[in-house]
């Protein structure tokens, strides 16, 4: 009986952790979905996340105001996105390369600023886990099983999941979403009916980058509450691949994010339980999984036809 209880506790712990860790993947990958739907592969997400993580952490530790910190992450995300957009859309640069440039820029700048402005690794008090208290003595988080899994996350985690239906609505139900999808699918046709291809792409890339900034902040001021050099550690790159994985649909991206975060959660719990799985293998697993998933042919149909192709009127 006792053994069963702990098994349940472990499973609950893994599910809870999986939902929690999905936060940065969701923000980054949903943002990247907008960008890719408009035809721009923004490979610089990792760099934007690093900058977002740093600036939100810095503002949080200086002012103690977490909402101001989040705003800082959004602003830096917008600026980085604008930079990416100018290079990749206006100057029609090869997107895989410009993304690596943006990543290195973000990596170098966030490390430099961390070293000169903060110096050592310290913790802060980040967004706390909500309890949803109905009365003084009863909180939703106290509900057995469900409460533990669903009602004890920080506001950013709920925001990340709320972003899924919002993204669906934006892409499917709004004129703006239609424009974004059309310039990613057939920019010439969109142009011929008067849609400004580059303006729609700028908007999508900048929105995506702002979300990447929040994704970085979700790590530094909500999940981990520290900043370290290179702390994003590949999540940004996986987020880019998650968009392919999820077939360019927000719901698909959400399932992909949950899959990856659950693997990370299993990793953590494996270590806690002292399971004899090499951490190197479990770290490797998501990356292998991504490659395998990319090789599965059925999602090809959904790829925006003009992805990575710059648009210029009257050429080609």
């Amino acid at each position: 009986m006792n053994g069963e209880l702990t098994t349940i506790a472990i499973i609950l712990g893994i599910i809870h952790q999986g939902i929690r860790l999905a936060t940065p993947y969701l923000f980054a990958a949903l943002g990247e979905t907008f960008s890719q739907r408009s035809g721009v592969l923004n490979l610089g997400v990792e760099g934007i996340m690093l900058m977002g993580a740093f600036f939100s952490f810095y503002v949080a530790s200086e002012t103690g105001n977490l909402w101001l910190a989040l705003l800082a992450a959004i602003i830096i995300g917008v600026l980085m996105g604008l930079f990416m957009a100018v290079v990749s859309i206006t100057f029609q640069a090869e997107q895989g390369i410009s993304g690596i440039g943006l990543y290195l820029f973000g990596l170098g700048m966030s490390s430099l600023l961390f070293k000169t402005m903060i110096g050592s690794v310290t913790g802060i008090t980040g967004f706390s886990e909500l309890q949803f208290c109905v009365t003084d003595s009863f909180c939703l988080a106290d509900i057995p099983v469900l409460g533990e899994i669903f009602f004890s996350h920080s506001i950013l985690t709920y925001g990340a999941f709320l972003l899924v239906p919002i993204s669906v609505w934006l892409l499917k139900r709004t004129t703006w979403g239609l424009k974004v999808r059309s310039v990613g699918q057939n920019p010439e046709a969109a142009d011929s009916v008067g849609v400004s291809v580059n303006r729609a792409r700028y908007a999508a890339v900048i929105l995506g980058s702002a979300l990447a900034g929040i994704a970085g902040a979700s790590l530094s001021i909500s999940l981990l509450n520290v900043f370290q050099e290179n702390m994003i550690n590949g999540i940004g790159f996986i987020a880019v691949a998650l968009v392919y994985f999820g077939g360019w649909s927000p719901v698909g991206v959400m399932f992909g994010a949950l899959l990856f975060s659950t693997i990370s959660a299993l990793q953590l719990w494996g270590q806690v339980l002292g399971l004899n799985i090499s951490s190197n293998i479990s770290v490797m697993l998501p990356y292998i999984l991504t490659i395998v998933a990319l090789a599965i042919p059925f999602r090809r149909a959904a790829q925006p036809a003009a992805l990575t192709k710059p648009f210029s009127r009257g050429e080609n």
Partner: protein
Amino acid sequence: MNRRWSDRLIDNLLYPLAAVLLAFLFGAVILLLQGVNPLEAYSSMVTGAFGSKNGLADTLVKAVPLMLVGLGIAIAFRGGVINIGAEGQLIVGALFTTWIGVQLGEQLPGAIAIILGLVGGALAGGVWGGISGYLKAKMDVNEILSTVMLNAIAIQIAFLLLRGPMIDPAELAAGTNIPHSARLPKTTDMPRFTDLAQMLGITGGADEVGIGGYLGEIYNVLVQPSRLHSGFIFAVIMAILVYIFLWRTTIGYRIRAVGLNRHASRYAGMNVPRTIVLSMTLSGMFAGLAGAVEILGLHHRMFEPTAVSAGYGFTGIVVALFGKLHPLGIIPSSILFGGLLVGGDKMQRAMQVPQVLTVAIVGLIILFVVSTDYLVRRRQNRRLSAEPDSLTTPDEPASPSITSAEVSA
């Protein structure tokens, strides 16, 4: 009709230099905000990298992996694919070379062990790059994504091996368990420049020969003991061979043709998927070679993978772009960026500016260089429309058009 030399100069030299200048200008603003005089910082960088014998030797040492990686990335670019996986390819190359050296180094004569090590490193890197090429050609997997993923996988494999079967027995005995391999036998060390000079019977320093000033420093780099090893000569020879390969052989022509226009190449009867696999494999081979040379020439043992690859896989991209994807342009380009890395280190010591500034600057240079390609293309188009008779023989584009998402044949 050839392009006028002034146009060539502007396209190939002025734009890239402007891109670098702009990146350093941005760096200067950052330095100013840090309260550091940018002129002082940059001059400490330049003198640190190029001013003295030791700085110069370090710069050339760093130019070796950059040159080899840059050559590989240029081959991929020329073939119309993008290789962002040089980090991983370099790591698996270094791992395999280390394994060969540790296992066979004692039994074999040094020269043969070195050659085997180089070949092994190239093969391992080639396989690692070839995976992405195969996935792209056969299953239409975006090679940008697969190479990024394979980078992460290579790092974990390296740690796995260095903590397990490849760990230095001395580490196990001491119980410290630092993940690094045993040292390769001394016989497998690629000769240093000073060793080569001694073989030629040159022993005296610049003072003894009577060469003064900066020339004396350069002379000392070649003759006196430093970390500079024969891998530099090897890399330069490789650059020349890649030039001959791309411009003087049928396979090289095919790679460039597929890079310039995949559809036309298919109509001309070329096997496009096979050429894509070949481009990525060759590209990976050069990154693997870089790993092999780093082990045999410099480190003589494998340790923390990201410290061995040291970002060369990414800096190699800017080396290739700055060298205009031309093997002979990559030689000076690699020395320049080797100098940037060394200079960043010297600047950190002299001015207390964190070295990571150079990472940010490299990122900016990449962004600016890829942006100037657009200006070059626009200038070319304008020239074409200005000279109607030249329409029949258009210029070769500054770089091949790469449409990575394009469905392969």
